[in-house]
């Protein structure tokens, strides 16, 4: 059935290697990604995993910062509903994520760039699958290239003058 096998590499955006920041919870998804390692499951090298104790710690500001600072996508991994090591942290994460998605819709950020997945400690293969999918999705979208705001300055250049001037 060789003529039916999937093409190995996805086309488009030649040379573009997506940069994806991943936030994984310590007990399920981070453990699963360790398991993927122990099981030598190779997957796309584009993710940079940041470990938090619980997906309940992950807040919009972290995701926004990642995109602002150059990530083309953000992947969030937490325990399956009902499995949270801290009982319900993953629900908080889900609620924030859903609202953030609404915001992104309005801000023109493609939904595929931000993904939330429940990955249990035993699901090393899911880390592999999800990472690969995510990388290909984002590769298809191309670089994010957010419009850069002019850097805010509180420049000290005029401070000296000001200090004296103020009291004069």
């Amino acid at each position, binding site marked *: 059935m060789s003529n039916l096998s999937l093409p190995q590499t996805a086309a488009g955006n030649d040379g573009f290697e997506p940069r994806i920041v991943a936030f994984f919870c310590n007990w399920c998804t981070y453990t699963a990604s360790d398991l993927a390692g122990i099981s030598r499951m190779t997957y796309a090298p584009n993710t940079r995993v940041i470990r938090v104790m619980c997906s309940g710690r992950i807040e919009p500001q972290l995701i926004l910062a990642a995109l602002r600072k150059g990530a083309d996508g953000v992947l969030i991994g937490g325990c399956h509903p009902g499995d949270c090591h801290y009982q319900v942290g993953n629900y*908080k994460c889900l609620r924030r994520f859903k609202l953030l998605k*609404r915001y992104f819709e309005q801000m023109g950020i493609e939904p595929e760039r931000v993904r939330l997945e429940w990955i249990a400690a035993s699901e090393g293969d899911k880390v592999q699958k999800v990472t690969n999918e995510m990388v290909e999705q984002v590769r298809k979208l191309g670089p994010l290239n957010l419009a850069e*705001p*002019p850097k805010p*300055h509180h*420049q000290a250049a005029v401070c000296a003058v000001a200090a004296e*001037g103020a009291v004069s």
Partner: protein
Amino acid sequence: MSKPKAGFYWCASCGGCEESVVDLAEDLIAVVAAIDFAFFPCAMDFKREDVEAMKDGEMAVCFINGAVRSSEQFEMVELLRKKSQLIIAYGSCAHMGGIPGLANLYDLESLLKRVYSETESTDNPSGTRPLPQTTVPGGKLTLPTLDESVKSLDQVIPVDYYIPGCPPPTPLLKAAVEAVLSGKLPPKGSVLAPDHALCKECPRIDSKPEDLLIKEFKRPHEIQIDTEKCLLAQGLMCLGSGTRAGCAAVCIKGNMPCTGCMGPVSRVRDHGGAMMGAISSLLEYTEEDQIVAALDSVVDPVGTFYRYGVPASMMFRKHKAPAIGGH
């Protein structure tokens, strides 16, 4: 000894900031006695040449309000930066981009199209648009050009201090003026307002339940608002929990929820982001579809959480902004 010179300039603003100066009322006399307004287009007849004539740093302080978008505003704020020892971004627009900053949800072209062709009240069959230059009998007329995005003041020139608010509460202005005169100023870059959130000063905080969970959000016109009870607890989207205090909770006292004009506290990197995180966490539901349904009652996330701060937010402006009327 001559009185220190001060300036008060407006960029893209509504005039509310100037009103807040007038709101100083009798204190205004003391201010005028202490400082000498060298430039105040709204109130007195100075011209740009007068500013250009000044020595660099001649003004002790210049308060600039309004967001920055037009070429004229760019030139003026750069000029004023040169002539003033201190620049104070005055009001939400100069501070974070303000209401005009919501224009960053659209690209310039679609905005012009909307304004000069599409609005119900527009009658412009020839599709006339303002031009940077027009030659008329007797010479050239020029108009300022518009930048692609709206910017907060500190995205254009170095800013020394910020006075937040839409408009800024007069006590903050008064305190700032005193600080400038006495030279007792905090570190550069400070926002001249308390560094905690509004709940701390809210008269209704005691009525906020400790086990608050939210089922759906209401808009002020949709309910009979209890005048005593915490507004968030009534389902109103009140941003007081994550918005800088210093306004004496005037909106709450007027039975209206906080809309965030004072911006975030210093520890927060993205005002709307922090608010979204906090408010959504309080939803009662765990089922995905229930959560989504409940969030549908947040009609306009950007307008709700970034009403005064799109330019100063991490996103700065809409990504690949489509034609106006996008949402």
